[in-house]
């Protein structure tokens, strides 16, 4: 491209040693850009919240027993009478906790995936690359092997998994960190190695388990959202809330890190602190999610890509939209999973892959997507 510098742009002799006059201008052009940026953020977020509410209502209505709008309304407003009490029980005791769990788990997986893809600068990153999930799975398997699954009021399994996940966070961090820094290639390698070792140990453990426990392990590994306990629901909601706040605070720093670590540091990003924060937040959230719902694939890797295609790469928008998008995807997928072969259920991971995969391929082929091109 040929650029013709216009004569008007050339400086005409400022007196030497004197400060240039402060330009008195209105920034109309810029103001419209700014309002566009801020307005766009609020518009997209508002739309996503509405979509989420819509998805919640949709998921409440459908299931093994489809409800009419009247029944749904009566149950939601606690104005049920007689025959409608069934609807109230279905909605408030069965479906609502499960839907909420789907929302929390999907949101956690997607926001973690988005943050980790920026952190390690790898499009294949998902919450499971850090090796935390394998540690949690190993913890769960060992817990089942020793019959700890049903202690502490049914919370034994998630607790074992969370302890396993926590130990693998310590392990991965210990392997990767050196001299107060957390090099990203080391982190990826440490994650891969911890994954491999934990998987091997888990295979060994499953080979000596009795068939009943083995079946529970297999089911747990497939991931399920059914019958969440209240403590699990509260715990994951709390973790998610903290994680969203911490990650959003670092979202502009993630933008800068995405265009190069040296550049980011020269622009004032404390890269060591940001990398450690994002790693720890992601790791703890992943450990918590895997503990309560097992390994639900696909959401963490693909949702951030979908959002990037639709909304751009700015992490200030990408992170919250990914969270809501992941929540919606998992809620809807779970509703499908518990509806289509009712009263039986399909593992929800199957549905997330079957819904999300073709949609992702469609977007990839019809839109120009330049991520690590």
């Amino acid at each position, binding site marked *: *491209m*040929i*650029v013709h*510098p216009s004569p008007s*742009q*050339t*400086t005409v002799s*400022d007196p030497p*040693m004197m*400060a*240039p*006059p*402060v*330009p008195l201008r209105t*920034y109309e*052009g*810029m*103001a419209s*850009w*700014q309002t566009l*940026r*801020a307005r766009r*953020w609020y518009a997209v977020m508002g739309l996503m919240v509405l979509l989420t509410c819509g998805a919640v209502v949709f998921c409440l209505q459908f299931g093994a027993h489809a409800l009419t709008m009247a029944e749904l309304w009566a149950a939601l407003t606690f104005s049920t009478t007689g025959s409608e009490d069934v609807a109230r029980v279905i909605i408030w005791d069965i479906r609502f906790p499960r839907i909420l769990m789907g929302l929390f788990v999907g949101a956690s997986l997607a926001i973690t995936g988005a943050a980790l893809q*920026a952190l390690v*600068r790898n499009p294949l990153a998902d919450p499971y690359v850090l090796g935390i999930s394998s540690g949690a799975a190993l913890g769960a398997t060992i817990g089942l092997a020793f019959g700890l699954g049903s202690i502490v009021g049914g919370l034994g399994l998630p607790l074992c998994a969370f302890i396993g996940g926590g130990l693998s966070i310590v392990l991965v961090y210990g392997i990767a960190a050196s*001299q107060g820094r957390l090099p990203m290639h080391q982190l990826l390698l440490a994650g891969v190695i911890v994954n491999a070792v934990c998987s091997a140990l888990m295979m060994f453990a499953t080979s000596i388990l009795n068939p009943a426990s083995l079946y529970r392990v297999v089911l747990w590994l497939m991931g399920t959202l059914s019958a969440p306990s209240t403590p699990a629901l509260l715990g994951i909601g709390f973790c998610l809330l903290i994680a969203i*706040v911490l990650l*959003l*605070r670092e*979202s*502009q*720093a993630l*933008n*800068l890190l*995405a*265009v*190069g670590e*040296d*550049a980011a*540091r*020269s*622009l*004032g*990003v*404390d890269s060591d602190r940001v990398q450690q924060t994002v790693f720890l937040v992601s790791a703890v959230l992943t450990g918590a999610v895997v503990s309560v719902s097992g390994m639900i694939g696909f959401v963490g890797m693909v949702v951030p890509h979908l959002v*990037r295609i639709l909304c*751009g*790469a*700015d992490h*200030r928008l990408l992170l*919250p939209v990914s969270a809501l998008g992941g929540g919606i995807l998992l809620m809807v997928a779970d509703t499908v999973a518990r509806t289509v072969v009712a009263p039986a259920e399909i593992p929800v991971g199957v549905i997330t892959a079957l819904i999300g995969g073709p949609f992702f391929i469609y977007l990839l082929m019809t839109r120009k997507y*330049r*991520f*690590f*091109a």
Partner: protein
Amino acid sequence: MSQHASISAVVSHLPAFEVRQLSFRYDSMPSHPSANRSAWVINRMEFTVRQGEIVGVIGPNGSGKSSLLKLLAKLVRPQEGTIQLFGAELGALSRESISRQVAYMPQELSSDFPFSVLDMVLMGRFPYRRGGLWNLVGWERQEDLAVAEEVMAQTDVTHLANRMVDTLSAGEQQRVLLARALAQVPRVLMLDEPTAHLDLNHQLDVCRILQRVHEQSQMTVLLVSHDINLASQYCDRILVMKQGAVVCIGPPQDVIHPRILTEVYGCQVLVDVHPDTGLPRVSLPSQDRHQTVAVSGML
């Protein structure tokens, strides 16, 4: 750029950079004191950069030019020696406070993520961000956008504002990087090979913009370049480096000298005078010529 006004109004005699006994190497293993000093990338450098001057850094490949810039931007830390930035110890300054004073323009823009030009330029406002509960995601304020518009006009990228950076030509990308650096409203601008990979016309563009910015703001500029002629044309002083040490520092007329260049680069060079500016100009002799020839009488 209103902040320039306040900065240049404070006439200070402190040097932009005061570098003393600076030594650096990449492996951080402790070594025996008698270990070979040639392993050091930067070896006991001493020099001063005055406020408001343009200093060019030249030297052969591997002489430590880029490492020097990284040291001055505190992207890496020296093992020995001190760097003072406007009289303050660089090691004691926070990353944020350095990034408000020193802008570092990397060699090229990495474009893995699809960001728009405006996004990219606004990243230069990161050191001035204001967080808080109501602005958790850190949206830019009106004055940030005002600065961005100003620097985008200066670097002639306003019309590209909504383009994605990875769709731009090399010259345009370079100007966007420059705009991002200027958006930091720095007192010192450091450029690593700003004209590498650019054709003549785009080289001229970047140099013109730099000169214009320098004239307007009296910004101190530190420029690493392989292009000795460019350094000669635009720099007040030139720092010649070899094997991590200062060979000499001075105005182009003194430093661009066949004897010095031959010593530093290890090959014969011709130095004559630029027909327009009268500044020294370097060219390589033809193959069969083995003697260094100084054509210029003033040399």
